[in-house]
């Protein structure tokens, strides 16, 4: 087993698992926000800040991890 193909496999699987984690986190946030807004529509503005900032942080983590996958796929594995 040469190992060169495993880097590509690893980066692809990693990107998929990152997607699961980031999507789960953001959807949990959104569901909590919807619940809060449904209970009390006037609180939608106050909830907005508490939703958007963590959502962008989670998305930032996801994109940073995606950058690691890009690095593995294009620089280590060289897209062969």
């Amino acid at each position, binding site marked *: 087993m040469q190992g060169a193909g495993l880097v590509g496999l690893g980066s692809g699987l990693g990107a998929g698992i990152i997607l699961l984690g980031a999507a789960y986190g953001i959807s949990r946030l959104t569901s909590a926000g919807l619940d809060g807004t449904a209970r009390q529509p006037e609180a939608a503005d106050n909830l907005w*800040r508490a939703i*958007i*900032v963590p959502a*962008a*942080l989670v*998305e*930032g983590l996801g*994109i*940073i991890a*995606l*950058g690691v996958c*890009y690095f593995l796929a*294009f620089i280590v594995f*060289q*897209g062969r």
Partner: protein
Amino acid sequence: MDLLELISHHLLDHALFSFTAAGHHFVFTKHMMMIALVSTLLMIAIPWAAKKAGSIPRGFYNLIEVYVLFVRDKIVLPSIGRHGERYLGYFLSLFLFILLSNLLGLIPGSAASTGNILVTGSLAMGTLGLISFAGIKEHGIWGFIKSFVPAGVPAALVPLVFVLEVFGLFIRCSVLAVRLFANMVAGHAVMLLFFALVFLIGSMAIAPVSIGIVIFVLFIELLVAFLQAYIFTMLSAIFVGLAVHSH
């Protein structure tokens, strides 16, 4: 054409023109030109719009006023409090620069200057400087250094907590820079990859699907441009607020 070279040509910075004068070699790169363009546009448009301040807002002045009030009332004042208006100039410049730079990067043929880690790193360094300046101005330099160690920490742990907190400040600013950079580059990379799909497969049959996906990603990138400008400015304001209010 090699796929890697094609994509790296569009994502990385490259020199546009250079000249040698007085024994020094000056190189002008594409991202430098984009920074100059964004700065010039802002320096022309904002004072021209602000001349009408105090009258009933209409037109371009109304548009700028929306952003100014948004940054002041939703970002700066809630995070920093009473004397937040002192720092409003920095946050407005930051927000408008990042927003305009992200938006101009979406035009085909031009590049996003915020897609360069050195540019976003400089913005984060500016935030780091402002955090230090605000903390020192509020508490004095010894008070600022003491503010790194919260009250009630046992004396044996104070050096460890101090070192961790200082590292934490630097790491938070670095993550600000990397978040903006990674969001911009990832969006452009995805668009370039889907365009390159046509070349990889070799036939034009995939082109409608490919271009459809690229248009979809372009709309998402529009949202991301606004969101990332807001997030960078918001987190900077929160960090400055933490430094100012740490008592």
